C-alpha cells in the first residue's frame, strides 16, 4: 500500500485520562493545584475516542493488513490501562514518559508527540481521537499535523484506502462529507465510527508478553522551554448547580403523566 509497496504502517495516539464516567459526586478539584483530583478507586481509562481510533486502525489491519503501533505520552502510566489497545489487537506500544511530561498543554503535547513520531519514522497513517475527554481541547492532532506537514482530516466516521491515499467520511451535524487525502496523513476519529472491539483472551495474553518501547525527554531531544504552557490557568472550578426541581406525582403513574401535563399548562409551557 505504501509507495514502497510494503505493509501499511499505522500509528495511533492514545491518551490516558481520568474516567469521564466518574460519578459527579466523586468529581473533585484541588483548589491549591487547580487540578482535578482522581477519584479514589476509579482507575484512569484510555480516552474513548482513542479507542475508536484503535478500532479504525484494526479494521484496516483486518481488511488490507497493517502494522499498528500505539503511542502515548505522560509522566506516568497505569500499565494495565495502556495495554488495552494491545489486547484489542495492536502490535506495539511506545510510551513517551518523563516527569517533565506532566499536564502538558496541547502545544507542548503536540511538540513531544511529533518528536516521538519523527524518531519512530515511516508511518503511512496517524490516527488520533477527535478530542481528549479531560480538557476537550481537540488541538493536539492539529499540532502534530502542522509540525509534520501532514494533511489533516478531523472527526472521521469511516476510513478507506484508495490508490495512494485515504478516503474519509467526516461526520457533520446533519450528514457527512467525503474527504480525500494522500498518504501519509493524520486523521482524527469520532464515535460515529462504531463501537471499539473488546479485547479477546488471546489478545490479553499476547499483550501481557509485549514490552513497551520507552522514550524519555532526552531520548527525544526535547527543548524544555517548549514545554511551558502557553495559556495561563487562572481558575478551575465545578460550576454551581442550584437544584430547583419541582417533582410532580399523582395517584399512580398514569395520573402522574396527566398531572405533569396540567402543571406544564399552568406554567404556560405547553
Amino acid at each position, binding site marked *: 500500500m505504501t509507495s514502497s509497496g510494503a505493509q501499511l504502517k499505522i500509528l495511533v495516539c492514545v491518551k490516558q485520562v481520568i474516567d469521564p464516567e466518574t460519578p459527579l459526586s466523586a468529581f473533585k478539584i484541588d483548589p491549591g493545584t487547580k487540578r482535578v483530583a482522581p477519584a479514589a478507586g476509579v482507575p484512569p481509562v484510555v480516552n474513548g475516542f482513542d479507542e475508536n481510533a484503535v478500532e479504525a486502525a484494526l479494521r484496516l489491519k483486518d481488511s488490507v493488513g497493517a502494522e499498528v503501533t500505539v503511542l502515548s505520552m505522560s509522566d506516568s502510566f497505569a500499565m494495565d490501562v495502556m495495554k488495552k489497545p494491545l489486547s484489542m489487537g495492536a502490535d506495539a506500544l511506545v510510551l513517551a514518559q518523563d516527569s517533565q511530561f506532566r499536564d502538558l498543554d496541547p502545544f507542548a503535547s503536540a511538540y513531544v508527540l511529533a518528536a516521538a513520531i519523527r524518531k519512530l519514522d515511516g508511518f503511512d497513517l496517524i490516527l488520533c481521537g477527535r478530542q481528549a*475527554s479531560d*480538557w476537550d481541547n481537540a*488541538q493536539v492532532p492539529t499540532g502534530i499535523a502542522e509540525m509534520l506537514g501532514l494533511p489533516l482530516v478531523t472527526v472521521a466516521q469511516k476510513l478507506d484506502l484508495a490508490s495512494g491515499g485515504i478516503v474519509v467520511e467526516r461526520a457533520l*451535524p446533519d450528514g*457527512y462529507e467525503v474527504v480525500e487525502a*494522500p498518504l501519509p496523513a493524520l486523521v482524527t476519529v469520532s464515535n460515529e465510527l462504531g463501537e471499539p472491539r473488546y479485547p479477546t483472551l488471546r489478545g490479553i495474553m499476547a499483550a501481557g508478553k509485549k514490552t513497551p518501547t520507552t522514550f524519555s525527554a532526552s531520548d527525544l531531544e526535547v527543548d524544555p522551554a517548549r514545554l511551558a504552557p502557553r495559556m*495561563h490557568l487562572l481558575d478551575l472550578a465545578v460550576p454551581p448547580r442550584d437544584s430547583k426541581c419541582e417533582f410532580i406525582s399523582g395517584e399512580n403513574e398514569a395520573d402522574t403523566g396527566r398531572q405533569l401535563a396540567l402543571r406544564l399548562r399552568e406554567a404556560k409551557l405547553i
Partner: protein
Amino acid sequence: MSGVLVFGELTDGHLSGTTAELIALGKQLGESVAVALFGGNMAGAADEAAAYGADRVHLVEDPLLVDGQKDAIIAAFDSLCREVSPDIVLIGKTPLGLDVGPRLAFRLHAGLAQDCVSLEMRDGKLVATRSVYGGNALATVGFPEQGPRIAIVRGKVYEPLAPDASQTAEIVKFEPKLDSSVIKAKTVQVVKRESQGVRLDDADVVVSGGRGLGGPDPFAQLQELASLLKGAVGASRAACDAGWLDHSYQVGLTGKTVTPNLYIAVGISGASQHMAGCSGAKNIVAINKDENANIFKEARYGVVGDWKGVLSSFIETVRELTKS
C-alpha cells in the same frame, strides 16, 4: 489594525447566526469589529454583517476559495491575520471553526481557548471561561502576550444584536494569492441528511430520549409528542451510538447545542456531556426512574418513574390541552 476579527461563516448564502453572535460579542470586547468572509459573491453577506454591527468586512477572494475547500480557507485566514494583526480572533464552535481555530493557533504561535462559554476584559486583558472535563468543570484562562488571542466560542451563548439595515461597514478586499499546494485534504462530496419537520437546532420545544427508552420504537411516541408541541426530537449519545437514531439527533458536547424554551428528557441520566448541549434550555422537564439521576439537578420539573407508565397519559393530556 488592532481590535476584533471574526471568522465569518454562511448558512444557505446568508451570514450565519453564529457569526452574528460573534459580532455582538466582539462589540463587548474591542473598539472595532471586523468580519472576514471567504469566496465570491459576498456583497449580500457583507451587508448583513454591517447590519449586525460589523465596522469592517474583509472580502477574502481567491480562485481557490470558490469551492469552499477548508485547507484553502485556513491558509487565506492565516494570511489575513498576518496582514491585519488583530488583537482578538473570534471563531464559532462549528465543524469548520473547530478546525480553523487550532490550525491558526499553531501557525501563528498564538494562544487558543476552545469551547468558550464566556469572554470578558479584565484590567485590559482578555479572560476566557471554557468548559472542560465534559462540562464537569469550568476553566478560567488568560492569554499570552504574543500573537492574537484566539477564542472558539460555543454557539447560542451570546445573543446577536438587533439587525439595523441602515448601518454600513467599510468593505476591504483581500487577495491572499494562494498556491494550490495549500490544499492537502480535499472535500469531494457533501452528503446532507434532510431533517423532516422542525429543525432540532432552532426548535422551541425539544423532546429527547436516552438509553432508558430501551430501543428505537419508543421514539415514535417522542415524535408524536414533539409534533403536538411543534417541536423536534433529540437524543443522547448513548441512544445514537446504539443505532436507535442517527447521530444528527445527538444533543450535547459533541452533538448539537439546543436552547429551546422547553426541553423534555425521557430516560436520560443527564451526564455533563449531554447537558453541555441543552443547559441553555429555559425549562427542562425530566422523566427518569432514578431519583438520584443528575438530570434532576438541572430540571425545573421532574417525574421520578418509569416512562412506560407515565408517557402515554402525558401525551394524551397534552393532546387534549393543545386541541383547538
